[in-house]
């Protein structure tokens, strides 16, 4: 087609698409002006419109990944496996593909030297790429390939009719292969599957009455015949000291002439525990079509070994010996005799549990036609205790031979249930069980420990490693859906700009996804792993954005009115986020349709105007959202769960303490959350159906922000390290300039909330150096620190000395909500001053200059107001009406100074005798209610605009900068004091505040 014509077609197509119906037809008629072929061309393209919706809609990249994986599984290097056909590998010419499974592919080949047909099996590199088994002997050291050759050579030494002979071992383009005897027939696995299929077809017409009906099994004589052959093969190998380690139906080949051949002897040793060499039917023989090709399980290319035939000692990762093969053989025998697997389950965990702790369903209950002798043999082979099992394959073989003789001579009649009804083995086993129980009783506690040891979930121990160790703060870890990457927020190497990053586990470099000068936080992955949603907070706006997980342009979905957190629903359709929309303080969880951000609706309705619902996290099935609910005035939260479909949230925890983040376990059974229940933040679990929370064995000592990978095997969380210290500045009388600081009160962790005693000789302050925040005192030079309080959980702070120096008022969360307490300055038991009023909070006490009243801040009216009550106890009186926080009387006792709220700017004053309030100092920044001090002639304060300490002179109304602290103050906390003689100023500063993400491998509850 000519270029010009195509351009015309394109233009007409695009223009026509913007028109519908008759308008379009009219447009085309006019535009084509009688050129019928042009019109047909455009119309035929437009006709595709309806069908193109999903056409090419799903990127093929995921399919390509599968192909890559499949290439690998089939052992062909960079080419299609079928490209192997006709090629010559070593001196083998590949003729035909016989089979392929998850762990290898088998070809028929011609040995060009000897002129015979062989089976060539390619093993995946997984077999070689793994660490040596723990028990490998030192002389077996060497390259993995060499080790493989040696093992194969050892196996090739066994020459027995019931073992598939290995001729040779080699390597082709990095893929190890073995050349072995070519067999015609099928694996026992196929044989059993085929048998089952046949009988089950009949059963669908004539349903069988209960468990006593005959199960789909091989004829008894056939079972016995094959079993004897396998036992003979095992015996021959064991006599040469070679253990198979992976006996299972897929590793037993049955030739067309009915001969049993054990495959892959010795090769399982090269494979990691629990992962057989030949999980699929990749035997060296032809298998009939129409059966599943090996155990492909869920996705191609995944190396899947079956755990169904493992011995208890293998499950416990103990040393194996020849008796291990006998247990596995017992499981195979059971399946041959009953048509059912001895140990089965949906997950390795379930199967392991069965192998370790449960006997299979009695074989006679499934197949009542079995001779009791055979059942006895199976039971003895399946003894969990190796000492009680068959000790040698020869013993087992002898028993099978005896049974065959008796059957042949008619002493045992197959197909008739013996009168005894129970196998002979049962009483014996019972005796053994009683003996074991007695031994356990005699050992007392030892018996219990033994039980616990057995119950211990199998698998490697948990390993905690740092995931990020960059400068600054890294936080909000979230696993990618495949569990190999973590998205997180980081304030950057310069600690000045929060952005979203993604880092692969095992790779040091993170990928930076955002660079906006605003704060980008709260990353959440789309369930397909292609996108990351996050929240942005700039000077001018709040936003919810989406960015490709590999980097790229960002798209704004929504503009909420506040910042907060975010989660993506498992079906990919919704984002859950928190936002204070209705009033200033109440925060709800909202759902936002990703495809249609206009569609956003509240999921929770806060019960009070002060309630904050935060931190939404979808359950793995997407049916529920877990979140934190607390009061906006305090910092305490509890875990709640609400159905997405609607309804009242269910409260899961009743701690009323600080909580830092939550996540679900993949089965939805537990919510993992971070709580200050033991004083410091640490990770806990609580059943999603309700119950008592329990601490996790990892993630204590200041850990928060938990995130679990989708398979639950990895856990990430944040650990904070911080250090704030109290610095002293000397105020030069008159000049108030260029003051230089000295570090006065320092320790690891927090030191803040300092105040002088009335005589100036002692300093009271708060520190968490003993594990939880408590009130301490020390001399005015910082020496002789002494812990004054020892309240249980929660924060304890803002200690204030009474004017007579005898008492100290402070606040504490120890009863679940803030209360004001008094303690003697000498120490002793503290007593609560404020009366409990529901769930309201009372914080930041201070004394009237005459010592008769204690001021404090309370949210009992629903907003922060300054209150006061007699120091002797009594009725509380409301002082401010339009908001107030952290009040102090002026030195002359005539004026009350206070901030407006936790996060409100400005300092205000009110005559103590009553009157109108006035704004005194607008320069006091929001969140700095704890960084000012009133003296005779003015106010010292931290000036966030200049990052300096200023002095506001009452007479001149001017602010003079008197010092420049190196580090920032502790926002939202108290950290400022001036000595009574106006000579010393104490400033608490944040000397270090970092957080890092930790990763737990092999995580389990």
């Amino acid at each position, binding site marked *: 087609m000519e270029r010009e014509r*195509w351009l015309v077609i*394109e233009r007409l*197509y*695009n223009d026509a698409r913007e028109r519908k119906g008759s308008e379009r037809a009219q447009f085309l008629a006019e535009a084509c002006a009688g050129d019928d072929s042009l019109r047909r061309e455009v119309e035929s*393209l437009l*006709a*595709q419109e309806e069908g*193109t919706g999903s*056409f*090419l809609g*799903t*990127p*093929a*990249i*995921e*399919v*390509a*990944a*599968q192909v*890559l*994986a*499949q*290439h*690998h*599984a089939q052992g062909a290097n*960079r*080419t*299609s496996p079928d490209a192997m056909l006709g090629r010559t590998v070593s001196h083998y010419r590949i003729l035909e*593909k016989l089979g*392929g499974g998850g762990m290898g592919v088998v070809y028929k080949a011609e040995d060009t030297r000897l002129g015979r047909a062989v089976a060539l099996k390619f093993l*995946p*590199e*997984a077999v070689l*790429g793994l660490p040596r088994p723990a028990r490998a002997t030192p002389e077996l050291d060497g390259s993995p390939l060499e080790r493989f050759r040696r093992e194969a050579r050892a196996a090739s030494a066994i020459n027995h009719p019931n073992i598939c002979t290995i001729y040779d071992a080699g390597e082709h383009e990095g893929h190890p292969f073995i050349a072995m005897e070519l067999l015609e027939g099928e694996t026992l696995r196929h044989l059993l599957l085929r048998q089952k299929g046949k009988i089950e077809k009949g059963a669908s017409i004539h349903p069988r009455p209960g468990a006593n009906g005959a199960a789909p099994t091989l004829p008894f004589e056939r079972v016995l015949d094959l079993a004897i052959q396998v036992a003979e093969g095992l015996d021959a190998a064991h006599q040469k000291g070679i253990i198979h380690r992976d006996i299972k139906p897929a590793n037993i080949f049955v030739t067309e002439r009915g001969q049993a051949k054990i495959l892959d002897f010795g090769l399982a040793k090269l494979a990691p525990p629990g*992962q057989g060499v030949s999980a699929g039917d990749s035997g060296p023989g032809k298998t009939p*079509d129409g059966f599943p*090709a090996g155990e*492909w*399980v*869920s*996705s191609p*290319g*995944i190396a*899947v*070994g079956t755990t169904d035939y493992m011995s208890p000692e293998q499950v416990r990762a103990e040393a194996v010996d020849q008796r291990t093969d006998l247990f596995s053989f017992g499981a195979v025998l059971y399946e041959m005799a009953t048509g059912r697997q001895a140990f089965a389950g949906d997950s390795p965990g379930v199967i392991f549990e069965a192998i370790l702790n449960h006997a299979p369903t009695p074989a006679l209950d499934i197949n009542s036609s079995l001779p009791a002798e055979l059942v006895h043999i199976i039971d003895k082979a399946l003894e969990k205790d190796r000492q009680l099992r068959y000790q040698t394959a020869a013993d087992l073989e002898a028993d099978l031979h005896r049974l065959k003789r008796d059957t042949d001579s008619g002493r045992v009649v197959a197909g008739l249930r013996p009168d005894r009804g129970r196998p002979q083995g049962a009483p014996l086993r019972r005796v053994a069980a009683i003996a074991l129980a007695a031994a356990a009783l005699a050992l007392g506690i030892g018996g219990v420990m033994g039980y616990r040891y057995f119950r211990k979930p199998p698998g490697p121990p948990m390993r905690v490693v740092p995931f990020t160790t960059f400068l600054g703060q890294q936080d909000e870890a979230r696993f*990618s*859906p*495949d569990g*190999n990457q973590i998205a997180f927020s980081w304030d950057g190497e310069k600690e000045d700009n929060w952005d979203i990053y*993604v880092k692969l586990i095992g790779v040091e*470099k993170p*990928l*930076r996804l955002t*660079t906006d000068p605003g704060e980008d936080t709260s990353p959440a992955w789309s369930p397909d*792993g292609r996108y990351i949603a996050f929240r942005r907070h700039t000077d001018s706006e709040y936003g919810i954005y989406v960015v*490709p*997980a*590999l*980097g*790229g342009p960002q798209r704004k979905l929504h503009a909420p009115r506040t910042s907060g957190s975010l989660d993506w629903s498992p079906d990919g359709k919704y984002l859950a986020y928190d936002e204070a929309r209705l009033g200033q303080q109440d925060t709800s969880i909202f759902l936002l349709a990703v495809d249609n951000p206009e569609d956003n609706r509240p999921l929770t309705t806060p019960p009070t105007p002060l309630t904050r619902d935060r931190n939404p996290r979808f359950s793995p099935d997407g049916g529920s959202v877990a979140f934190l609910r607390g009061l906006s005035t305090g910092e305490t939260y509890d875990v709640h769960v609400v159905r997405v479909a609607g309804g009242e949230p269910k409260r899961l925890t009743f701690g009323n303490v600080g909580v830092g983040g939550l996540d679900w376990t993949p089965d939805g059974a537990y919510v993992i959350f971070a709580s200050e229940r033991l004083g410091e933040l640490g990770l806990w679990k609580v059943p999603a159906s309700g119950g008592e929370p329990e601490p996790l064995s990892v993630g204590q000592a200041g850990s928060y922000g938990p995130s679990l990978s989708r398979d639950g095997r990895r856990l990430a969380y944040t650990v904070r390290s911080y250090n704030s210290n109290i610095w002293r500045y000397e105020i030069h009388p008159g000049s108030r300039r260029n003051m230089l600081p000295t570090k006065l009160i320092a320790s690891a962790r927090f030191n803040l909330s300092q105040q002088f005693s009335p005589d100036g000789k002692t300093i009271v302050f708060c520190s968490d150096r003993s594990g939880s925040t408590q009130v301490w005192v020390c001399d005015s030079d910082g020496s002789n620190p002494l812990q004054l309080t020892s309240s249980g959980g929660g924060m304890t702070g803002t200690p204030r000395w009474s004017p007579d120096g005898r008492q100290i008022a402070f606040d504490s969360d120890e009863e679940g909500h803030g209360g004001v307490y008094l303690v003697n300055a000498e120490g002793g038991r503290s007593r609560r001053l404020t009366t409990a009023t529901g769930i309201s909070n009372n914080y930041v006490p201070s004394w009237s200059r005459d010592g008769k009243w204690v001021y404090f801040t309370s949210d009992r009216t629903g907003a922060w107001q300054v209150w006061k009550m007699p120091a002797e106890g009594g009725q509380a009186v409301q002082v401010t009406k339009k908001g107030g926080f952290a009040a102090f009387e002026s030195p002359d006792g005539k004026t009350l100074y206070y901030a407006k709220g936790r996060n409100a700017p400005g300092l205000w004053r009110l005559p103590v005798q009553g009157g109108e309030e006035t704004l005194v100092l607008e320069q006091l920044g929001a969140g700095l209610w704890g960084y000012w001090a009133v003296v005779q002639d003015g106010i010292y304060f931290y000036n966030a605009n200049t990052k300096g300490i200023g002095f506001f002179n009452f007479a001149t109304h001017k602010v003079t900068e008197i010092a420049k602290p190196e580090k920032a103050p502790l926002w939202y906390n108290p950290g400022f004091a001036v000595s009574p003689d106006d000579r010393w100023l104490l400033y608490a500063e944040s000397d270090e505040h970092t957080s890092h993400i930790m990763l737990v491998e092999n995580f389990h509850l």
Partner: protein
Amino acid sequence: MQPSGQAVTQLLQAWCQGDPSALEKLVPLVYQELYRLARRHMATERPSHTLQATALVHEAYVRLVESDHTHFKNRAHFFAVCAQVMRRILVDWARAHEATKRGGEVRPLKLEEALVVESKPGRDFVALDDALKELTALDPRKAQVVELRFFGGLSVEETAEVLQVAPVTVMRDWNLARSWLRRELTKGAPGGA
């Protein structure tokens, strides 16, 4: 064996600056790395683990490309290379599969899931590849858009960056290209146009 990050970065930059031969050199390097990573994942990951292509590409990028992480241009071009690689992998695979259908041992991939042609049999990556070649002859940019979007999984914005056009142009190209391809692929089939 791993190609040096510098080499890949330089090639990427050369290609960004309009040197078409750089792409030819890049494709095998990227292929090699993707294959190596896929193999390593398969060898070391636990059972039940699925290979995620986006994660794979991400890892290949981090390992291969030496660059300022915020250099979006490099990244977009890298994905464009991956798109070519993916196309070749799939087409090669489909050809081989077609040739040995009788074997029956190769688990069929659900191509229809990715390539929705209203379940008409016999349509696969080979046919799409052929049609794409025809489209390239007719209008190269439209074929590129399909390659980047379908084989590479690039978003409209990323595609626009690679091709140096406006996103709205990408959308238009995408619409027309899909209509055209769909028409070509359903030609002669029952119910086809």
